[in-house]
């Protein structure tokens, strides 16, 4: 096999090509959730279509699920309706469903890798932009809209024009307390929200090799915020170990055979990329966003910028509008921004590693008076593991609410939301206006930065803490 890892997986899955150079790619894993599937299902019912491969499909409830309780959940009426629709559709089309009560329920991008469904070399599609997450395991994954969700249900394929390829190389040893989340925010602040539009990113370099698999998921998760179509990291021993033994992962001889194939996926030396960029990230400090898209970010020792610093008129206006929304003055030290709410959760940062990192900072400390802090594990499995390790006690004793799994305050569809004007330190991926609640002001950070902000009531530099 020649070329990049992207070429190899692409070519392997190409079923056909059309006269305009689009590929029909076979999709090995199709994940679906309650928000982007109902319209696809109703259209299929109207047209008499069925799901071609229910065995390669997994449905979950994540965006709308209550996280306060399984026994006495607080359900928003429309959320309940959407979840009911998911339940009915999955029965009607015979699709496996992790519903609200399933012991493995959780956020779609946490569950896929956790169950061993996402493995190297597979193609993944999901009606959700953060499907790029799965690239961390060496899968080629695509976030898609509802029309394409329907297309995958019916045909198990997707028509795609091959995106251009963008190699992002990160080298250097990270400072203590600096994580994959900081790498993601740093990259986006450097190349912008449109920096990778039309491209698939392949991450590479010593920093990436040093990241654990869950950290890689955080980084790949946020590639979409740099505009990337998706992203991928060549699988290595760490990935094989992560995959091995998971419920749906290949077993025994099959696993050994798989590893032989997976070892061949690496990009060949000299393979061509359409774009390349290199960073030395050894001096990087933890990142915090100050604006209303993920590129508006600064290192913790920085300041909120002034619109005057930008040359382009529309950029200046955008920054002005952002600062007005965020209620921030130019020149404010990032460390002086106070937080009202701390949210540790989402498909970006709610895996076991993330909770462990936050707990390390929280151990023996208390959440500052007046700050509301909630921890929402990415899946019920993560929650159980954390509880077995006693991590939940660290959160609870510090004064955090310890919740059930779901998207929760990342998108605020289930009732977990910021109040107007509140500033949040959030481990999620989007600081768009009103994303976490009407009038809410989001600052994106890593789990340890969020934990530290909970203790102090403002942002602090965790790379300076012991």
């Amino acid at each position, binding site marked *: 096999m020649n070329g990049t890892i992207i070429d190899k997986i692409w070519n392997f*899955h190409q*079923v*056909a090509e059309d006269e*305009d*150079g*689009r590929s*029909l790619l*076979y999709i*090995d894993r199709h994940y679906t959730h309650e928000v*982007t599937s109902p319209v696809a299902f*109703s259209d299929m019912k109207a047209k008499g*279509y069925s799901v071609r491969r*229910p065995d*390669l499909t997994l449905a979950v409830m994540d*965006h709308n699920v209550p996280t306060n309780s399984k026994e006495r959940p607080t359900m928003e009426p*429309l*959320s309940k309706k959407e979840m009911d*629709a998911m339940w009915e559709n999955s029965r009607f089309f015979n699709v*496996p469903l*992790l519903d609200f*009560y*399933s012991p*493995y329920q959780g956020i779609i991008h946490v569950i896929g890798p956790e169950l061993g*469904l996402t*493995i190297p*070399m*597979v193609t993944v599609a999901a009606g959700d*932009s953060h499907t790029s997450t799965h690239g961390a395991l060496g899968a080629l994954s695509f*976030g898609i*809209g*509802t*029309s*394409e969700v*329907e*297309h995958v249900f*019916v*045909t*198990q*394929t997707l028509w795609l*024009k091959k995106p251009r390829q963008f190699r992002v190389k990160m080298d250097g040893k990270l400072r203590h307390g600096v994580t994959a989340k900081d790498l993601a925010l740093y990259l986006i602040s450097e190349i*912008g*929200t*449109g920096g990778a*539009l*039309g491209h698939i990113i392949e991450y590479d370099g010593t920093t990436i090799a040093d990241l654990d698999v869950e950290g890689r998921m955080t980084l790949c998760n946020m590639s979409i915020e740099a*505009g990337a*179509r998706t992203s991928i990291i060549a699988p290595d021993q760490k990935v094989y170990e992560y995959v091995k033994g998971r419920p*749906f992962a290949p077993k025994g001889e*099959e696993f050994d*055979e798989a590893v032989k194939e997976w070892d061949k996926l690496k990009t060949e030396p000299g393979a061509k990329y359409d774009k390349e960029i290199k960073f030395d990230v050894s001096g990087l400090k933890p990142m915090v966003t100050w604006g209303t*898209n993920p590129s508006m970010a600064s290192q913790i020792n920085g300041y909120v910028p002034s619109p005057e610093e930008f040359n382009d008129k*529309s950029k200046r206006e955008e920054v002005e509008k952002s600062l007005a929304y965020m209620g921030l003055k130019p020149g404010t030290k990032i460390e002086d921004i106070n937080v009202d709410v701390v949210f540790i959760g989402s498909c970006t940062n709610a895996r076991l590693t993330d909770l462990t990192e936050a707990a390390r900072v929280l151990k023996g400390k208390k959440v500052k008076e007046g700050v509301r802090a909630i921890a929402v594990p990415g899946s019920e499995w993560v929650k159980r593991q954390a509880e077995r390790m006693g991590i939940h006690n660290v959160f609870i004793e510090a004064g955090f609410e310890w919740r059930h799994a779901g998207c929760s305050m990342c998108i*605020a*569809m289930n009732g977990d939301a910021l109040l*107007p004007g509140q500033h949040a330190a959030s481990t999620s991926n*989007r600081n*768009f*206006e*009103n*994303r976490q609640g009407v009038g809410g002001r989001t600052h994106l950070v890593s789990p340890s930065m969020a934990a530290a902000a909970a203790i102090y009531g403002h942002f602090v530099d965790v790379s300076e803490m012991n």
Partner: protein
Amino acid sequence: MTLKEYSGKAVPLLMDNVDTDQLIPAEFLKLLEKRGLGKYLFYRWRYDQKGNENSEFLLNDPKFKDGTVLIGLRNFGIGSSRENAVWALVDFGFRVVLAESFGDIFYENAVKNGLILVKLDINTLKKIGELAKSGNLIVTVDLEKKQVSYGGRSIGFQMDESVRKRLISGKSEIEITLDYNEKIALFESKMPKFLKVNMEPEQRKIIEG
């Protein structure tokens, strides 16, 4: 349905990074329907927290209420994959969006729904935007000639051939793909075992609970 040319009134929303959370907020993703979403387009910008119209926002200006060609700047439609953003634009009456660049998933969603997205350079967009402020600029997009005309001027644009053809023909892709059934089945028959999923009833029961 074929669509070769479209003309309509331009609406200058001269902003960068208009994300799909702004195009339609998440609470309106619970409606289980793709029709009727126009009311929720740019909901947080069009209405205040009490639900009153915000008179400062462009789409509430009477002179733009019948606009059908939206002018953006950089990175229009970034963010979430919600196709509802496209459904809302189309239901509101928009047929065309001009911008320098678009979110990749948003772009594909638009094509699927016959919303024409045209990429132009930033200076041209700003020029068209200035003229559009009058509230009576008509913009024409010609998909055959790949050309945008406004105020007596014309400029060519690039568009992927498959996108252009799909916009013109408006055909359902699923129908087309079903003709590839044999090739799909052949791929499935050759799939290596380690890539398959063992979704047997017992296994399924364990995870479903």
